[in-house]
């Protein structure tokens, strides 16, 4: 086998131009695949990070409360009882926090915008101070009622800074107009698309705005030690809550506010709970990941076909050039299988070298662009989930890309290799060309 490898390697070296051309093409495709893979991973990481900060826990127990059939609100009443059940049922909870959910018009002296509100109780939010990177002010000030924490892009739009006053204006669930005056206690760095419309408000202030009492919240956000347990934990929690007499809506991979429109059309009144995972809550943006992955697949497939044709052609040429050599090898006793393996090995070596180079180049490009922090136009931020291009290097994904391309190179080399192996020694030796 070592000899075969050496023959293949030397052969690649002896045909430098051809090897460089084909290896370069393989490296180029790998670079592209690795680069797009890093982008997809970067978007996914940003999405997950911002979602877990702003909108969701690893799992959530949310719910809908309907006073009348036509009016529904994202509320969980008497949530402490449910929190007890959750904490007793799930074995690997990191922590559970109650978050209010709401929408309102946020008005500054200069501008206004519609925002989603996360009502927080800072005493039970251990994650928030760690993950929010503040541009101005302090996260801890969110503990004081009447303060609001906004994000950089919102501050820019509303033309406000820490200490400025604003007004939240809302139509409560009972259809009464209400307002609450707030002060900006901090401006945090943007964390992707989700932070362009979400703000943090103390739960007490949100209750005052929405006219709800302190036994009511929007959802229980459950953070787990092991995210791999989510499907099992969701089933377990569903059974337990149903057993405890709670109405739980059927599983649907949609964000709570999308489901709320459907719930509003239903005729029931009262409380129903909804158990969701983090990816359900941001399902409306995960299509961007599918789009990036789809684009990667399409581009890579097209390029791989071109490379495959190139490899086959070059092997045809190699076989033609080395027909007498094949004949001699067969005449001195080399088996057909080994002849075939010799050519396959050549394509394999070319694949490994090309993809290795491509992986290095792709990773290097991702690292450089990460360091440069390339700004993304506002329109494209819907895809990238961030104001700057972010790439994440996932070794498994990079190795996977290398393996796929090398495998393709190897597989396509089998056809010409098989032809070489089938040559009769006499014919091959007497071949002139």
């Amino acid at each position: 086998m070592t000899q075969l490898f050496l023959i293949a390697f030397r052969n690649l070296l002896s045909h430098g131009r051809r090897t460089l051309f084909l290896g370069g093409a393989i490296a180029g495709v790998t670079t592209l695949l690795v680069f797009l893979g890093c982008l997809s991973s970067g978007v996914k990481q940003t999405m997950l990070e911002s979602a877990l900060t702003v909108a969701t826990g690893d799992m959530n127990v949310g719910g809908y409360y309907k006073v009348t059939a036509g009016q529904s609100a994202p509320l969980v009443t008497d949530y402490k009882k449910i929190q007890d059940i959750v904490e007793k049922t799930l074995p690997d909870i990191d922590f559970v926090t109650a978050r209010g959910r709401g929408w309102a018009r946020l008005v500054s002296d200069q501008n206004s915008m519609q925002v989603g509100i996360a009502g927080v109780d800072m005493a039970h939010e251990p994650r928030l101070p760690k993950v929010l990177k503040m541009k101005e002010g302090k996260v801890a000030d969110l503990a004081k009622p009447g303060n609001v924490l906004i994000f950089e892009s919102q501050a820019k739009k509303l033309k406000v800074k820490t200490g400025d006053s604003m007004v939240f204006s809302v139509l409560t669930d009972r259809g009464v107009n209400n307002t609450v005056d707030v002060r900006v206690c901090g401006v945090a760095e943007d964390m992707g698309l989700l932070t362009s419309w979400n703000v943090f408000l103390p739960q007490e202030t949100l209750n005052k705005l929405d006219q709800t009492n302190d036994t009511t919240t929007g959802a229980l956000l459950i953070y787990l030690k092991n995210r791999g347990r989510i499907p099992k934990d969701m089933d377990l929690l569903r059974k337990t809550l149903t057993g405890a007499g709670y109405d739980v809506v059927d599983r649907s991979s949609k964000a709570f506010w999308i489901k709320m429109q459907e719930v509003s059309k239903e005729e029931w009144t009262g409380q129903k709970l909804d158990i969701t995972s983090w990816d359900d809550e941001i399902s409306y943006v995960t299509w961007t990941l599918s789009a990036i992955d789809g684009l990667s697949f399409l581009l890579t497939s097209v390029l791989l076909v071109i490379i495959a044709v190139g490899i086959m052609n070059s092997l045809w040429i190699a076989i033609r050039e080395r027909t007498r050599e094949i004949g001699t090898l067969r005449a001195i006793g080399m088996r057909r299988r080994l002849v075939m393996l010799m050519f396959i090995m050549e394509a394999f070596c070319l694949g490994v070298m090309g993809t290795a180079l491509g992986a290095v180049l792709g990773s290097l490009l991702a690292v450089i662009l990460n360091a440069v922090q390339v700004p993304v136009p506002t329109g494209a931020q819907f895809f990238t989930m961030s104001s700057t291009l972010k790439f994440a290097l996932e070794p498994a994904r990079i190795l996977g890309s290398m393996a796929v391309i090398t495998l393709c190179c190897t597989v396509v080399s089998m056809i010409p290799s098989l032809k070489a192996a089938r040559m009769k020694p006499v014919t091959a030796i007497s071949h002139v060309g």
Partner: protein
Amino acid sequence: MSDNFQGEIMKSQNPFYHRVNGVTQSKAKDLIGFVFLKNRTLFTLCNSVFQILFISVLTLTPAGLFAQTLGHDKMVDILKGIDLRIRSGGDYKALVYLEQHQKDKPDIAQEALVYRRDIDQKLMILFTKPKTDAGKGYLRVDRNLWYYDPSVGKWERRTDRERIGGTDSDREDFDQSNLAEQYDPQFVGEEKLGSFTVWHLKLTVKSGIDVAYPLVEFWVDEATGNYLKRQDFALSGRLMRTSYDPKWDKLYSDAKKDYLWFPHEIHIYDEIDKGNSTLVIIQSVDLSTLPENMFTKAWLETKSR
């Protein structure tokens, strides 16, 4: 419309107007304080009981005078009058022009047909212009407001207090009113609004009743009984919007056997998002009987095609 009243509307477009008004009010408070201090020097020898009595009399006198001018029953009658004037005994159809001005955005103009059958509390709004909005509509069924968008072909249940067509107007601006049933009136004073002499009433929502604005202030023309100005306050007490109804028209209704009054123009100013305003012009009103099966989703869908 008198020039003075027009001026009042123009003033209201100035975001500083209410602050100016606020300063005027605080000056008035200062004046009371000045009188109080002067009185204190005059009556330094009097005992504290006398002083308290004096202050109470000084403070309560205007209210007492006004209370004599307009009692609770009279105020309820005024509200009932407003409700009755707006209410149509039969059917109602109006062509309405809506113009929305938004800060830093281009103006939006829309035209809609408003259909009402007040006896059954039915209301339908069908947008006719511009082309992009034509066919969209609202239908009130019981306490639910349904919205239809022909481009989607679906009905959506919306809140009864929805901003109509994205403007500052809401369903109540086009519908009959129930002020006397929903609110408790309180007399603020007799005032001048431009050249009009008006009663200034403060209405607080009765307990157990859900309304969009729990506190409303009305300026009712003494001569005609029509309200000329209205301010809507949020539950927090913050002023949300001010509207002016400077021109009222009337039309004889055979079904009602009386005149139906309607504001020809409504100028609505967003007091939270300063700079946003809406102009509603009720261009023509027709009180002829409408088809029986009009107030249905099917009818609106047919018209939307």
